[in-house]
Protein backbone atom coordinates (compact mmCIF):
# COMPACT_ATOMS: atom_id res chain seq x y z
CA UNK A 1 0.00 0.00 0.00
CA UNK A 2 1.13 3.52 -0.73
CA UNK A 3 -0.07 5.83 1.99
CA UNK A 4 -0.02 9.54 1.35
CA UNK A 5 -0.71 11.77 4.32
CA UNK A 6 -1.20 15.53 4.64
CA UNK A 7 0.87 16.59 1.63
CA UNK A 8 1.51 20.29 1.56
CA UNK A 9 3.08 22.26 -1.20
CA UNK A 10 3.22 25.95 -2.03
CA UNK A 11 4.28 27.20 -5.39
CA UNK A 12 5.56 30.75 -4.99
CA UNK A 13 3.03 32.05 -2.50
CA UNK A 14 0.12 30.04 -3.76
CA UNK A 15 -0.72 26.82 -1.92
CA UNK A 16 -1.22 23.97 -4.37
CA UNK A 17 -1.59 21.09 -1.98
CA UNK A 18 -3.07 21.90 1.38
CA UNK A 19 -3.09 18.56 3.06
CA UNK A 20 -3.73 15.77 0.59
CA UNK A 21 -4.24 12.33 2.09
CA UNK A 22 -5.25 9.07 0.47
CA UNK A 23 -4.12 5.51 0.01
CA UNK A 24 -3.72 3.16 -2.89
CA UNK A 25 -3.62 -0.59 -2.69
CA UNK A 26 -1.84 -3.28 -4.61
CA UNK A 27 -4.05 -5.03 -7.15
CA UNK A 28 -6.25 -1.94 -7.50
CA UNK A 29 -6.44 0.80 -10.06
CA UNK A 30 -6.79 4.14 -8.31
CA UNK A 31 -7.59 7.28 -10.23
CA UNK A 32 -6.57 10.70 -9.07
CA UNK A 33 -8.94 13.26 -10.52
CA UNK A 34 -9.15 16.99 -10.44
CA UNK A 35 -9.52 20.08 -12.56
CA UNK A 36 -6.55 21.48 -14.46
CA UNK A 37 -3.92 22.76 -12.11
CA UNK A 38 -5.34 20.88 -9.14
CA UNK A 39 -1.98 19.34 -8.47
CA UNK A 40 -2.54 15.78 -9.67
CA UNK A 41 0.75 15.58 -11.53
CA UNK A 42 2.47 17.16 -8.58
CA UNK A 43 1.20 14.45 -6.22
CA UNK A 44 2.59 11.75 -8.47
CA UNK A 45 5.92 13.51 -8.77
CA UNK A 46 6.01 13.98 -5.02
CA UNK A 47 5.46 10.28 -4.41
CA UNK A 48 8.37 9.63 -6.76
CA UNK A 49 10.60 12.12 -4.97
CA UNK A 50 10.88 14.35 -8.00
CA UNK A 51 9.36 17.35 -6.28
CA UNK A 52 10.13 18.38 -2.71
CA UNK A 53 7.18 18.98 -0.40
CA UNK A 54 6.60 21.51 2.31
CA UNK A 55 5.11 18.90 4.56
CA UNK A 56 3.45 15.54 4.70
CA UNK A 57 4.38 11.90 4.67
CA UNK A 58 4.61 9.27 1.98
CA UNK A 59 4.82 5.67 3.01
CA UNK A 60 5.48 2.91 0.52
CA UNK A 61 4.72 -0.51 2.02
CA UNK A 62 5.28 1.00 5.43
CA UNK A 63 8.59 2.75 4.71
CA UNK A 64 8.73 6.52 4.88
CA UNK A 65 10.08 8.00 1.63
CA UNK A 66 9.22 11.71 1.75
CA UNK A 67 12.33 13.69 0.81
CA UNK A 68 12.28 16.03 3.76
CA UNK A 69 11.83 13.20 6.22
CA UNK A 70 14.01 10.47 4.85
CA UNK A 71 16.27 12.21 2.35
CA UNK A 72 19.41 11.10 4.12
CA UNK A 73 18.68 7.43 3.97
CA UNK A 74 21.37 5.88 1.88
CA UNK A 75 19.43 3.58 -0.38
CA UNK A 76 16.21 5.54 -0.40
CA UNK A 77 16.38 6.17 -4.11
CA UNK A 78 16.90 2.55 -4.92
CA UNK A 79 14.09 1.50 -2.61
CA UNK A 80 11.71 3.90 -4.21
CA UNK A 81 12.63 2.89 -7.74
CA UNK A 82 12.40 -0.77 -6.92
CA UNK A 83 8.88 -0.36 -5.64
CA UNK A 84 7.37 2.29 -7.85
CA UNK A 85 7.54 2.83 -11.57
CA UNK A 86 6.60 6.31 -12.70
CA UNK A 87 5.47 7.00 -16.23
CA UNK A 88 5.52 10.77 -16.76
CA UNK A 89 3.54 12.57 -19.40
CA UNK A 90 6.63 12.77 -21.65
CA UNK A 91 9.38 10.48 -22.75
CA UNK A 92 12.41 10.98 -20.53
CA UNK A 93 15.02 9.62 -22.91
CA UNK A 94 17.51 11.40 -25.19
CA UNK A 95 15.75 12.04 -28.50
CA UNK A 96 18.79 10.97 -30.49
CA UNK A 97 18.57 7.47 -29.07
CA UNK A 98 17.07 4.65 -31.03
CA UNK A 99 14.43 2.54 -29.34
CA UNK A 100 16.71 -0.45 -28.97
CA UNK A 101 19.33 1.76 -27.34
CA UNK A 102 16.75 3.03 -24.88
CA UNK A 103 15.76 -0.52 -24.05
CA UNK A 104 19.39 -1.38 -23.56
CA UNK A 105 19.77 1.65 -21.29
CA UNK A 106 16.98 0.33 -19.08
CA UNK A 107 18.51 -3.10 -19.08
CA UNK A 108 21.89 -1.63 -18.15
CA UNK A 109 20.71 0.52 -15.33
CA UNK A 110 17.85 -1.45 -13.82
CA UNK A 111 19.29 -4.94 -13.30
CA UNK A 112 16.86 -7.19 -11.53
CA UNK A 113 14.01 -4.74 -12.03
CA UNK A 114 13.87 -4.50 -15.81
CA UNK A 115 12.04 -7.33 -17.51
CA UNK A 116 13.42 -7.54 -21.04
CA UNK A 117 10.98 -10.27 -22.03
CA UNK A 118 7.96 -8.23 -21.00
CA UNK A 119 9.42 -5.26 -22.87
CA UNK A 120 9.69 -7.28 -26.06
CA UNK A 121 6.11 -8.51 -25.67
CA UNK A 122 4.85 -4.98 -25.27
CA UNK A 123 6.87 -3.73 -28.23
CA UNK A 124 5.25 -6.36 -30.39
CA UNK A 125 1.82 -5.66 -28.95
CA UNK A 126 2.18 -1.97 -29.75
CA UNK A 127 3.80 -2.63 -33.08
CA UNK A 128 6.90 -0.52 -32.39
CA UNK A 129 10.06 -0.97 -34.44
CA UNK A 130 13.29 -1.11 -32.47
CA UNK A 131 15.35 0.70 -35.05
CA UNK A 132 13.18 3.77 -34.95
CA UNK A 133 14.62 6.98 -33.44
CA UNK A 134 12.84 8.49 -30.47
CA UNK A 135 12.76 11.95 -32.03
CA UNK A 136 10.90 10.56 -35.04
CA UNK A 137 8.12 8.85 -33.13
CA UNK A 138 4.56 10.09 -33.52
CA UNK A 139 2.84 11.28 -30.39
CA UNK A 140 0.89 8.10 -30.12
CA UNK A 141 3.90 5.88 -30.55
CA UNK A 142 5.88 7.93 -28.10
CA UNK A 143 3.18 7.44 -25.50
CA UNK A 144 3.17 3.73 -26.19
CA UNK A 145 6.92 3.47 -25.87
CA UNK A 146 6.72 5.44 -22.65
CA UNK A 147 4.41 2.75 -21.33
CA UNK A 148 6.83 0.05 -22.39
CA UNK A 149 9.65 1.74 -20.49
CA UNK A 150 7.51 2.07 -17.42
CA UNK A 151 5.58 -1.17 -17.35
CA UNK A 152 8.46 -3.49 -18.21
CA UNK A 153 9.92 -2.67 -14.79
CA UNK A 154 8.77 -5.32 -12.35
CA UNK A 155 7.58 -3.01 -9.61
CA UNK A 156 4.58 -3.57 -7.35
CA UNK A 157 3.30 -0.03 -7.98
CA UNK A 158 2.88 2.01 -11.13
CA UNK A 159 2.15 5.71 -11.40
CA UNK A 160 0.83 7.01 -14.71
CA UNK A 161 0.54 10.69 -15.44
CA UNK A 162 -2.02 11.49 -18.13
CA UNK A 163 -1.32 8.44 -20.28
CA UNK A 164 -4.06 9.42 -22.76
CA UNK A 165 -3.56 13.11 -23.13
CA UNK A 166 -3.22 14.29 -26.68
CA UNK A 167 -3.20 10.81 -28.16
CA UNK A 168 -5.15 9.73 -31.21
CA UNK A 169 -8.16 7.48 -30.80
CA UNK A 170 -6.61 4.21 -31.94
CA UNK A 171 -3.55 4.62 -29.81
CA UNK A 172 -5.81 5.38 -26.90
CA UNK A 173 -7.66 2.17 -27.41
CA UNK A 174 -4.43 0.23 -27.55
CA UNK A 175 -3.25 1.85 -24.33
CA UNK A 176 -6.55 1.21 -22.60
CA UNK A 177 -6.17 -2.45 -23.46
CA UNK A 178 -3.04 -2.53 -21.37
CA UNK A 179 -5.17 -2.15 -18.29
CA UNK A 180 -7.08 -5.31 -18.92
CA UNK A 181 -4.27 -7.69 -19.67
CA UNK A 182 -1.66 -9.30 -17.53
CA UNK A 183 0.89 -6.53 -17.55
CA UNK A 184 -0.88 -4.71 -14.78
CA UNK A 185 -2.03 -7.77 -12.86
CA UNK A 186 -1.51 -7.68 -9.11
CA UNK A 187 0.08 -4.27 -9.26
CA UNK A 188 -1.14 -1.07 -7.62
CA UNK A 189 -1.81 1.54 -10.27
CA UNK A 190 -2.30 5.22 -9.65
CA UNK A 191 -3.40 7.09 -12.72
CA UNK A 192 -4.28 10.68 -13.39
CA UNK A 193 -6.32 11.45 -16.41
CA UNK A 194 -8.92 13.71 -17.92
CA UNK A 195 -10.27 11.00 -20.18
CA UNK A 196 -12.32 9.26 -17.50
CA UNK A 197 -14.53 7.64 -20.11
CA UNK A 198 -11.71 5.44 -21.41
CA UNK A 199 -11.05 3.82 -18.09
CA UNK A 200 -14.12 4.46 -15.97
CA UNK A 201 -15.01 0.82 -16.10
CA UNK A 202 -11.57 -0.18 -14.92
CA UNK A 203 -11.20 2.13 -11.96
CA UNK A 204 -11.44 0.50 -8.57
CA UNK A 205 -10.95 3.58 -6.43
CA UNK A 206 -11.48 7.24 -7.07
CA UNK A 207 -9.72 10.10 -5.35
CA UNK A 208 -10.99 13.58 -6.18
CA UNK A 209 -8.80 16.61 -5.57
CA UNK A 210 -10.42 19.97 -5.10
CA UNK A 211 -8.92 23.17 -3.67
CA UNK A 212 -5.77 21.43 -2.63
CA UNK A 213 -7.37 18.67 -0.55
CA UNK A 214 -9.10 15.38 -1.21
CA UNK A 215 -12.73 16.32 -1.60
CA UNK A 216 -13.89 12.75 -2.01
CA UNK A 217 -12.33 9.31 -2.08
CA UNK A 218 -14.44 6.22 -2.64
CA UNK A 219 -14.57 2.71 -3.96
CA UNK A 220 -16.31 2.89 -7.35
CA UNK A 221 -18.08 -0.44 -6.90
CA UNK A 222 -19.50 0.59 -3.55
CA UNK A 223 -20.60 3.95 -4.94
CA UNK A 224 -22.48 2.25 -7.72
CA UNK A 225 -24.16 -0.22 -5.38
CA UNK A 226 -24.85 2.15 -2.52
CA UNK A 227 -25.90 5.31 -4.29
CA UNK A 228 -26.33 4.04 -7.82
CA UNK A 229 -23.99 6.73 -9.09
CA UNK A 230 -21.34 6.36 -11.72
CA UNK A 231 -18.01 8.03 -11.27
CA UNK A 232 -18.91 10.73 -13.72
CA UNK A 233 -22.04 11.49 -11.76
CA UNK A 234 -20.02 12.03 -8.63
CA UNK A 235 -17.52 14.15 -10.47
CA UNK A 236 -20.24 16.43 -11.69
CA UNK A 237 -21.44 16.88 -8.14
CA UNK A 238 -18.03 17.64 -6.78
CA UNK A 239 -16.71 19.91 -9.47
CA UNK A 240 -19.74 21.85 -10.53
CA UNK A 241 -19.61 25.19 -8.69
Amino acid at each position, binding site marked *: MIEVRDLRLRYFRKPVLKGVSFTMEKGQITCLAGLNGAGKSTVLKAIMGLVPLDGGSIRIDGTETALHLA*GNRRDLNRFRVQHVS*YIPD*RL*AMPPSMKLWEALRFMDD*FYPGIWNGGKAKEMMTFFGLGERERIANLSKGNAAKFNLVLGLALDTPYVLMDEPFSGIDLFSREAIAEVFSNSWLEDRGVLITTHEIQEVEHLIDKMVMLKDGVVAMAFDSEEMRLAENKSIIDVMREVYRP
Partner: protein
Amino acid sequence: MKALLKLIHFEIHRFRYILFGLMGLTALVQIGATVLIAIGDRMERLAEYANPEVVPGPVSVLEPLANNRGLYGFPVLICIVTLLLYVFLIWYREWFGKSTLIYRLLMLPMPRRNVYLAKLAALLVFIGSLLALQLVLLLVIRAVFNAIVPDEYLVAASLADMINTNEVFQILLPLSLEFFVLFYGMGITCVLVLFTAVLLERGRRPRGTFLAAAYAAGMTVLLVGTIVARAASLHEWLHLYAYEFTWILAGIWVIAAAFAVWLGFRALNRTVSV
Protein backbone atom coordinates in the same frame (compact mmCIF):
# COMPACT_ATOMS: atom_id res chain seq x y z
CA MET B 1 30.27 0.96 -8.59
CA LYS B 2 29.59 -0.61 -11.95
CA ALA B 3 26.47 1.47 -12.22
CA LEU B 4 28.49 4.62 -11.62
CA LEU B 5 30.95 3.66 -14.34
CA LYS B 6 28.12 3.05 -16.76
CA LEU B 7 26.71 6.45 -15.95
CA ILE B 8 30.10 8.07 -16.50
CA HIS B 9 30.29 6.41 -19.86
CA PHE B 10 26.80 7.69 -20.64
CA GLU B 11 27.89 11.25 -19.88
CA ILE B 12 31.08 10.94 -21.90
CA HIS B 13 29.29 9.34 -24.79
CA ARG B 14 26.74 12.11 -25.21
CA PHE B 15 29.45 14.76 -25.40
CA ARG B 16 31.73 12.87 -27.75
CA TYR B 17 31.06 14.86 -30.89
CA ILE B 18 31.81 18.17 -29.23
CA LEU B 19 34.91 16.71 -27.65
CA PHE B 20 36.16 15.39 -30.96
CA GLY B 21 35.39 18.75 -32.49
CA LEU B 22 37.50 20.53 -29.90
CA MET B 23 40.33 18.05 -30.31
CA GLY B 24 40.19 18.36 -34.05
CA LEU B 25 40.14 22.12 -33.99
CA THR B 26 43.14 22.32 -31.69
CA ALA B 27 45.14 19.79 -33.68
CA LEU B 28 44.27 21.41 -36.96
CA VAL B 29 45.13 24.93 -35.94
CA GLN B 30 48.32 24.09 -34.08
CA ILE B 31 49.74 21.60 -36.54
CA GLY B 32 48.55 23.58 -39.50
CA ALA B 33 50.16 26.76 -38.24
CA THR B 34 53.40 24.93 -37.60
CA VAL B 35 53.45 23.41 -41.07
CA LEU B 36 52.83 26.72 -42.75
CA ILE B 37 55.42 28.56 -40.69
CA ALA B 38 57.98 25.82 -41.10
CA ILE B 39 57.57 25.74 -44.84
CA GLY B 40 57.86 29.49 -44.99
CA ASP B 41 60.97 29.31 -42.88
CA ARG B 42 62.46 26.61 -45.03
CA MET B 43 61.96 28.63 -48.16
CA GLU B 44 63.55 31.61 -46.52
CA ARG B 45 66.58 29.67 -45.47
CA LEU B 46 67.09 27.97 -48.76
CA ALA B 47 67.00 31.38 -50.40
CA GLU B 48 69.48 32.71 -47.89
CA TYR B 49 71.68 29.71 -48.39
CA ALA B 50 72.00 30.61 -52.01
CA ASN B 51 73.45 33.96 -51.00
CA PRO B 52 76.97 33.28 -49.68
CA GLU B 53 77.19 36.54 -47.80
CA VAL B 54 74.31 35.86 -45.52
CA VAL B 55 74.76 33.25 -42.84
CA PRO B 56 71.35 32.31 -41.54
CA GLY B 57 71.16 31.67 -37.84
CA PRO B 58 69.83 28.61 -36.11
CA VAL B 59 66.19 28.14 -35.43
CA SER B 60 64.11 25.91 -33.23
CA VAL B 61 60.46 25.21 -32.88
CA LEU B 62 60.43 27.79 -30.14
CA GLU B 63 60.44 30.54 -32.70
CA PRO B 64 57.02 29.92 -34.25
CA LEU B 65 55.63 29.21 -30.81
CA ALA B 66 56.94 32.40 -29.32
CA ASN B 67 56.02 34.57 -32.28
CA ASN B 68 52.50 33.26 -32.72
CA ARG B 69 51.30 32.90 -29.19
CA GLY B 70 47.82 34.05 -30.03
CA LEU B 71 47.47 31.57 -32.86
CA TYR B 72 48.51 28.59 -30.79
CA GLY B 73 46.61 29.72 -27.77
CA PHE B 74 43.37 30.49 -29.56
CA PRO B 75 42.04 26.93 -29.95
CA VAL B 76 42.95 26.25 -26.34
CA LEU B 77 40.87 29.20 -25.25
CA ILE B 78 37.97 27.93 -27.31
CA CYS B 79 38.24 24.61 -25.50
CA ILE B 80 38.32 26.32 -22.14
CA VAL B 81 35.28 28.44 -22.90
CA THR B 82 33.37 25.44 -24.20
CA LEU B 83 34.13 23.35 -21.15
CA LEU B 84 33.24 26.27 -18.90
CA LEU B 85 29.87 26.56 -20.59
CA TYR B 86 29.38 22.84 -20.27
CA VAL B 87 29.90 23.05 -16.51
CA PHE B 88 26.49 24.68 -16.54
CA LEU B 89 24.96 22.94 -19.52
CA ILE B 90 25.81 19.48 -18.31
CA TRP B 91 23.09 20.03 -15.72
CA TYR B 92 20.76 22.45 -17.44
CA ARG B 93 20.43 20.26 -20.49
CA GLU B 94 18.56 17.72 -18.37
CA TRP B 95 15.77 20.19 -17.66
CA PHE B 96 15.57 22.09 -20.90
CA GLY B 97 15.25 20.58 -24.30
CA LYS B 98 12.87 17.98 -25.56
CA SER B 99 13.69 15.14 -23.31
CA THR B 100 13.83 16.33 -19.67
CA LEU B 101 16.19 13.53 -18.86
CA ILE B 102 16.28 14.69 -15.27
CA TYR B 103 13.28 12.48 -14.59
CA ARG B 104 15.23 9.47 -15.73
CA LEU B 105 18.41 10.38 -13.85
CA LEU B 106 16.64 10.97 -10.56
CA MET B 107 14.81 7.69 -10.88
CA LEU B 108 17.79 5.42 -11.41
CA PRO B 109 18.17 2.72 -8.78
CA MET B 110 21.33 4.17 -7.34
CA PRO B 111 22.10 6.89 -4.83
CA ARG B 112 21.49 10.25 -6.46
CA ARG B 113 24.99 11.40 -5.67
CA ASN B 114 26.14 9.09 -8.45
CA VAL B 115 24.60 11.49 -10.93
CA TYR B 116 26.73 14.31 -9.50
CA LEU B 117 29.84 12.16 -9.43
CA ALA B 118 29.33 10.90 -12.96
CA LYS B 119 29.04 14.40 -14.36
CA LEU B 120 32.09 15.48 -12.42
CA ALA B 121 34.08 12.47 -13.58
CA ALA B 122 33.09 13.02 -17.19
CA LEU B 123 34.18 16.64 -17.01
CA LEU B 124 37.52 15.59 -15.55
CA VAL B 125 37.98 13.09 -18.34
CA PHE B 126 37.28 15.82 -20.89
CA ILE B 127 39.80 18.16 -19.30
CA GLY B 128 42.37 15.41 -18.85
CA SER B 129 42.08 14.12 -22.38
CA LEU B 130 42.41 17.60 -23.82
CA LEU B 131 45.50 18.20 -21.71
CA ALA B 132 46.96 14.90 -22.87
CA LEU B 133 46.17 15.91 -26.41
CA GLN B 134 47.98 19.22 -25.97
CA LEU B 135 51.06 17.44 -24.69
CA VAL B 136 51.03 15.09 -27.63
CA LEU B 137 50.47 18.02 -29.99
CA LEU B 138 53.54 19.79 -28.63
CA LEU B 139 55.60 16.74 -29.46
CA VAL B 140 53.99 16.48 -32.88
CA ILE B 141 54.58 20.16 -33.58
CA ARG B 142 58.22 19.78 -32.72
CA ALA B 143 58.55 16.71 -34.94
CA VAL B 144 56.78 18.38 -37.83
CA PHE B 145 58.89 21.49 -37.56
CA ASN B 146 62.10 19.52 -37.35
CA ALA B 147 61.10 17.45 -40.33
CA ILE B 148 60.44 20.42 -42.55
CA VAL B 149 63.28 22.76 -41.66
CA PRO B 150 66.63 21.63 -43.01
CA ASP B 151 68.85 19.98 -40.43
CA GLU B 152 71.73 22.34 -40.61
CA TYR B 153 69.71 25.16 -39.10
CA LEU B 154 67.94 23.13 -36.51
CA VAL B 155 68.43 23.40 -32.80
CA ALA B 156 66.76 21.20 -30.24
CA ALA B 157 64.09 22.53 -27.94
CA SER B 158 62.88 20.94 -24.78
CA LEU B 159 59.25 20.47 -23.92
CA ALA B 160 59.68 22.69 -20.89
CA ASP B 161 60.94 25.56 -23.05
CA MET B 162 58.06 25.07 -25.46
CA ILE B 163 55.62 25.38 -22.62
CA ASN B 164 57.32 28.53 -21.38
CA THR B 165 56.79 30.32 -24.68
CA ASN B 166 53.13 30.85 -24.07
CA GLU B 167 51.30 32.08 -20.98
CA VAL B 168 48.34 29.87 -21.78
CA PHE B 169 50.55 26.79 -21.69
CA GLN B 170 52.30 27.98 -18.58
CA ILE B 171 49.04 28.04 -16.71
CA LEU B 172 47.61 24.82 -18.12
CA LEU B 173 50.82 22.85 -17.86
CA PRO B 174 52.79 24.40 -15.05
CA LEU B 175 56.26 23.04 -14.71
CA SER B 176 56.08 22.47 -11.01
CA LEU B 177 54.00 19.67 -9.56
CA GLU B 178 52.96 21.93 -6.74
CA PHE B 179 51.48 24.52 -9.06
CA PHE B 180 49.78 21.82 -11.10
CA VAL B 181 47.99 20.51 -8.04
CA LEU B 182 47.28 24.06 -6.87
CA PHE B 183 45.76 25.32 -10.13
CA TYR B 184 43.76 22.23 -10.89
CA GLY B 185 42.68 21.86 -7.30
CA MET B 186 41.36 25.39 -7.40
CA GLY B 187 39.73 24.78 -10.76
CA ILE B 188 37.99 21.64 -9.58
CA THR B 189 36.80 23.42 -6.46
CA CYS B 190 35.26 26.10 -8.66
CA VAL B 191 33.52 23.42 -10.73
CA LEU B 192 32.15 21.85 -7.55
CA VAL B 193 30.87 25.20 -6.33
CA LEU B 194 29.21 25.85 -9.70
CA PHE B 195 27.65 22.38 -9.74
CA THR B 196 26.18 22.94 -6.32
CA ALA B 197 24.96 26.41 -7.23
CA VAL B 198 23.15 24.96 -10.25
CA LEU B 199 21.59 22.23 -8.16
CA LEU B 200 20.44 24.75 -5.59
CA GLU B 201 18.94 26.86 -8.33
CA ARG B 202 17.02 23.85 -9.58
CA GLY B 203 15.12 23.61 -6.33
CA ARG B 204 11.57 24.87 -6.15
CA ARG B 205 11.07 28.50 -7.09
CA PRO B 206 11.55 31.05 -5.72
CA ARG B 207 13.67 29.65 -2.96
CA GLY B 208 15.95 27.87 -5.40
CA THR B 209 17.06 30.96 -7.24
CA PHE B 210 17.58 32.88 -4.06
CA LEU B 211 19.61 30.12 -2.39
CA ALA B 212 21.76 29.63 -5.45
CA ALA B 213 22.50 33.33 -5.74
CA ALA B 214 23.32 33.63 -2.05
CA TYR B 215 25.56 30.57 -2.14
CA ALA B 216 27.34 31.65 -5.30
CA ALA B 217 27.87 35.16 -3.99
CA GLY B 218 29.10 33.90 -0.64
CA MET B 219 31.54 31.43 -2.15
CA THR B 220 32.83 33.98 -4.62
CA VAL B 221 33.56 36.44 -1.84
CA LEU B 222 35.24 33.76 0.24
CA LEU B 223 37.38 32.25 -2.50
CA VAL B 224 38.28 35.46 -4.25
CA GLY B 225 38.93 36.84 -0.80
CA THR B 226 41.63 34.25 -0.19
CA ILE B 227 43.38 35.29 -3.38
CA VAL B 228 43.15 38.95 -2.46
CA ALA B 229 44.33 38.27 1.06
CA ARG B 230 47.35 36.41 -0.21
CA ALA B 231 48.14 39.08 -2.75
CA ALA B 232 47.75 41.82 -0.19
CA SER B 233 50.10 40.03 2.20
CA LEU B 234 47.51 39.92 4.93
CA HIS B 235 49.69 37.45 6.75
CA GLU B 236 51.90 40.20 8.03
CA TRP B 237 49.00 41.79 9.84
CA LEU B 238 48.13 38.41 11.31
CA HIS B 239 51.67 37.74 12.47
CA LEU B 240 51.92 34.68 10.30
CA TYR B 241 54.65 33.64 7.95
CA ALA B 242 53.65 33.72 4.31
CA TYR B 243 53.87 29.99 3.88
CA GLU B 244 51.73 29.32 6.93
CA PHE B 245 49.12 31.64 5.51
CA THR B 246 49.20 29.78 2.23
CA TRP B 247 48.53 26.51 3.99
CA ILE B 248 45.56 28.04 5.79
CA LEU B 249 44.14 29.47 2.59
CA ALA B 250 44.62 26.15 0.83
CA GLY B 251 42.75 24.56 3.72
CA ILE B 252 39.89 26.97 3.17
CA TRP B 253 39.65 25.89 -0.45
CA VAL B 254 39.62 22.24 0.53
CA ILE B 255 36.86 22.86 3.04
CA ALA B 256 34.96 24.87 0.42
CA ALA B 257 35.21 21.93 -1.97
CA ALA B 258 34.04 19.44 0.63
CA PHE B 259 31.18 21.71 1.62
CA ALA B 260 30.19 22.15 -2.01
CA VAL B 261 30.02 18.40 -2.52
CA TRP B 262 28.05 17.88 0.68
CA LEU B 263 25.61 20.65 -0.16
CA GLY B 264 25.26 19.43 -3.73
CA PHE B 265 24.43 15.90 -2.61
CA ARG B 266 21.96 17.27 -0.14
CA ALA B 267 20.31 19.42 -2.79
CA LEU B 268 20.05 16.43 -5.09
CA ASN B 269 18.50 14.31 -2.36
CA ARG B 270 16.16 16.80 -0.84
CA THR B 271 15.43 19.96 -2.72
CA VAL B 272 15.86 19.34 -6.42
CA SER B 273 12.65 19.62 -8.36
CA VAL B 274 11.82 18.56 -11.87
